[in-house]
């Protein structure tokens, strides 16, 4: 993949760093006991601490710290045994205290990395600069009243992890792959639902352009982009915009921009919206956060197998290709169901993991997707393993597998019952197949003559006719074998 964009004056390299805000999975907020359920009635999940009433004090939620540390460990990052919570001061109606408690100079997690899968089967490491914990703000609702703004504080104080990458990404595709990989890791860890549509994963993109190998250009920050697709579109647009500005003799101005997903463009925020001096200082209501090294070690030992390790194991133990393994491990559930399926089928018949993997990746994913299910859900609800056994036993052909799975999904029968009922059993009775071949050959004497004269391509035509005559139930290998014999005369 080329990382360069062609402009009028030559090639340009795009430099991208992402700041992801990931909502921590936790029943309670970062500094209060209020609940965090998504979609609750406005202002029903607000404590006096969240609303910053006089005299209220924050108390750190230990579980949220555990989640952040797990995330750090999952990103192969340094865990700082001492970190500090700072106040980021600014006025806004949905920021009750007038400051956000965040971590500025001493975050809980330091440098780490994420491995991106490259199409050639290798990986590329993208640096993680830091991960810190901070509070979310509330929501200002501007559309409820013609002249008033309503404030919903349900989200105020919910724990976020800000995950900052190094400026290591070079294309919009890479940025997309980074987000998908990050999402996968967070879900494996159970530290963030990573649902961009629900807003529990939000992304700020820092984009600049430079001549290949030149010094870094001035960057712009695109705030709060809320889907992987939009992130890619925003970066693509922004890079081309900057190249155009420079090529027309202008200079990129460091600024904060917003992505207009309707028009597919980025536009500058009004300067007033960004000219903040946040006056960071350590929050005197909170002691420095001190972690016990043994506790961190215990957390590390309790981590689940993460996508990269699982992928390596799948390649090693199941002899899967890199792309097969990557496809399976992206979602933990899919990987789990694949392993269970392989185990169950292999108990009954000989099956290569690659066959099972392809079934899950190609057939099951497609059918499940059409039904709005995940592959894992489909496998749990339907008799995929029965269908695979029938296929391996040559009861049904590979090409009938899809039809059987679709039938099973509609009828909720076992694969075997469905095949019996529909009479889909593959015909392996040589007599019946020979009869069908004879009938087809008798109908097409001219083509038989052509074949025998050397036009061997016609074999496929005869196979097609025979399969049609047997409603696809004839065993293709047998058909081939018997047909060749008969044509040979």
């Amino acid at each position, binding site marked *: 993949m080329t990382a360069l964009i062609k402009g009028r004056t030559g090639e340009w390299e795009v430099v991208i760093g992402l700041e992801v805000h990931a909502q921590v999975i936790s029943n309670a907020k970062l500094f209060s006991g209020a609940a965090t359920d998504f979609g609750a009635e406005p202002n029903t999940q607000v404590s*006096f601490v969240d*609303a*910053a*009433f*006089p*005299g*209220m*004090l*924050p*108390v*750190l939620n230990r579980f949220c710290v555990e989640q952040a540390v797990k995330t750090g460990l999952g990103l192969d990052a340094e865990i700082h045994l001492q970190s500090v919570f700072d*106040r980021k*001061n600014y*006025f*806004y*109606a949905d920021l*009750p*205290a*007038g*400051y956000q408690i965040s971590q500025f100079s001493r975050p809980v997690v330091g440098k780490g990395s994420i491995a991106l899968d490259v199409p050639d089967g290798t990986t590329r490491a993208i640096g993680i600069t830091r991960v810190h914990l901070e509070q979310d703000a509330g929501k200002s609702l501007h559309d409820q009243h013609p002249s008033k*703004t309503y*404030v919903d504080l349900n989200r105020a104080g919910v724990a976020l992890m800000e995950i900052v990458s190094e400026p290591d990404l070079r294309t919009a595709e890479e940025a997309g792959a980074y987000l998908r990989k990050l999402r996968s890791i967070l879900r494996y860890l159970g530290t963030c639902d990573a649902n961009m549509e629900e807003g529990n994963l939000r992304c700020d993109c820092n984009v600049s352009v430079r001549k290949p190998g030149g010094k870094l250009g001035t960057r712009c920050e695109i705030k709060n982009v809320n889907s992987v697709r939009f992130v890619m579109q925003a970066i693509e647009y922004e890079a081309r915009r900057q190249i155009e500005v420079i090529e027309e003799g202008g200079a990129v101005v460091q600024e904060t921009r917003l992505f207009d997903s309707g028009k597919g463009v980025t536009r500058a925020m009004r300067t007033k919206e960004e000219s903040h*001096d946040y*006056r*960071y*200082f350590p929050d*005197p*209501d*909170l*002691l420095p956060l001190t972690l016990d090294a043994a506790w961190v070690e215990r957390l590390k030992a309790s981590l689940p197998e993460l996508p990269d390790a699982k992928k390596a194991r799948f390649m090693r133990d199941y002899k899967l290709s890199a792309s097969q393994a990557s496809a399976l491990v992206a979602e933990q559930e899919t990987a789990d169901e694949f392993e269970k399926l392989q185990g169950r089928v292999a108990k009954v018949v000989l099956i290569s993991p690659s066959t099972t993997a392809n079934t899950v990746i190609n057939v099951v994913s497609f059918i499940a997707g059409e039904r709005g299910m995940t592959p894992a859900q489909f496998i749990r609800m339907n008799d995929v393993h029965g269908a695979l056994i029938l296929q391996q036993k040559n009861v049904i052909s590979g090409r009938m597998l899809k039809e059987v799975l679709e039938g099973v999904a509609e009828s909720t029968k076992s694969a075997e019952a469905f095949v019996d009922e529909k009479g889909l059993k593959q015909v392996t009775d040589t007599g019946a197949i020979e009869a069908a071949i004879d009938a087809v050959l008798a109908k097409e004497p001219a083509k038989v003559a052509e074949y025998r004269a050397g036009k061997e391509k016609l074999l496929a035509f005869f196979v097609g006719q025979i399969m049609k005559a047997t409603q696809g139930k004839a065993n293709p290998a047998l058909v081939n074998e018997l047909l060749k014999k008969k044509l040979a005369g």
Partner: protein
Amino acid sequence: MNLTALTIGQARERLRRKDFTARELAEAYIKAMEAARPLNVYLVETPDRALAAAAQSDARLQKGSALPLDGVPVAVKDLFCTDGIETTAGSKILGGFVPPYESTITANLWRNGALMLGKVNLDEFAMGSATITSARGPTENPWRRKGDNRPLVPGGSSGGSASAVAARAALAATGTDTGGSIRQPASFCGIVGLKPTYGRCSRWGIVAFASSLDQAGPMTRDVRDAAIMLHAMAGHDPKDSTSAPLPVPDFEQAVGQSIKGLRIGIPKEYRLDGMPKEIETLWQRGIDWIKSAGATTVDISLKMTKYALATYYIIAPAEASSNLARYDGVRFGLRVPGETLDAMYENTRGQGFGAEVRRRVLIGTYVLSAGYYDAYYLKAQKVRTLIARDFNEAFKSCDAILTPTAPSAAFAVGEKMDDPIAMYLNDVFTVPVNLAGLPGISVPAGLSQDGLPLGLQVIGKAFDEETVLRVAGVLEDAAKFGALPAFVAGTA
């Protein structure tokens, strides 16, 4: 019998002996509270609540199952949030604010049987040294200079608390001390004021001024009462992350114990140029008392003292500027509408905060600003560390430190008011103690030439309030401070 003349220790005994009831004591104080109205001490009077609590105290006293503070009528500084009772911090911006929760400290007091007489005045958001910055007007000191009837300030910011206790309009009061706000008014009003170690008392439910310095404590008639009150107030509170997870000692047991063999540090840097002679004399008298009680004195050096006020006036406003950001007109208190959100903020905060609060919010915002942070806030934090180190070093050679509480006696309303710096100098002896997070007490030790009370301060090691109380008890016994203010509620 003059019930309001008793200390907590005395009243406790006599309530248990059933010489009088909690109700009778409460009624006496309710009368005194009403009589003290000319001093502008109470912002809210809660006599019904006091009587209801007294009835419960009487029931327990009858059964012989009295709580430690049963029947003790207390005035609460209006910085403590009280459930269902207006809490304003002396500010217009919190006018009409009625908290739906009770501060940990006051809840602890009520749980121990104390009853609330009402909420008392203070400098707005506890910012001041004279109780003159309150939106509800200044509070008067019940003392007068000899032959001069001009009203005097009670000190601040806990001036309402000090005035109430001195004028016998409350048996005890809660105060808060960020830079001297318990000790200096105690000194000005001739009572005992104890600032505990930072972390000893929970800050939960106290309107915050400067979080790393604020500490609640008792203001009482004598040292034993301070110990009794502190025992009820103190303790670890999981709702305050800075509260210390330590057991609460039996403070009262320390009062009256000998100080024989103790080493008392005398810091040379506290001898200020231009300090009034009578303060110097008072201090020397304190040293003599200590020595005759069998303790030795040690000359110590607290080198960073001269930087303490400057350091304090960076750190405290910095934290305040952030702590006070929540008063924005959006959720509670005053809202002055505006065309835009920013205009609403400007109108609300411009009209809601008084001049001193605005000044400190401005200073605090400035010292935290980009480009100034390192030169001011960060430098101040470093100096603060050095000040604490000074004390740690000093405590290697002594067990407690003796100093004057304030560089002067109470001044008149109008004096020192045009110069904020002169006002800030009131706290020169008390501020270092807050910066180091140490316990300190002010004990009335004598009268000025004008006949005004003067206090001596005892500073202790962190979480060693017991030694502080021991030394304070000895000073109290030696000083035999028996003078009464010009105004004593109910006797005028």
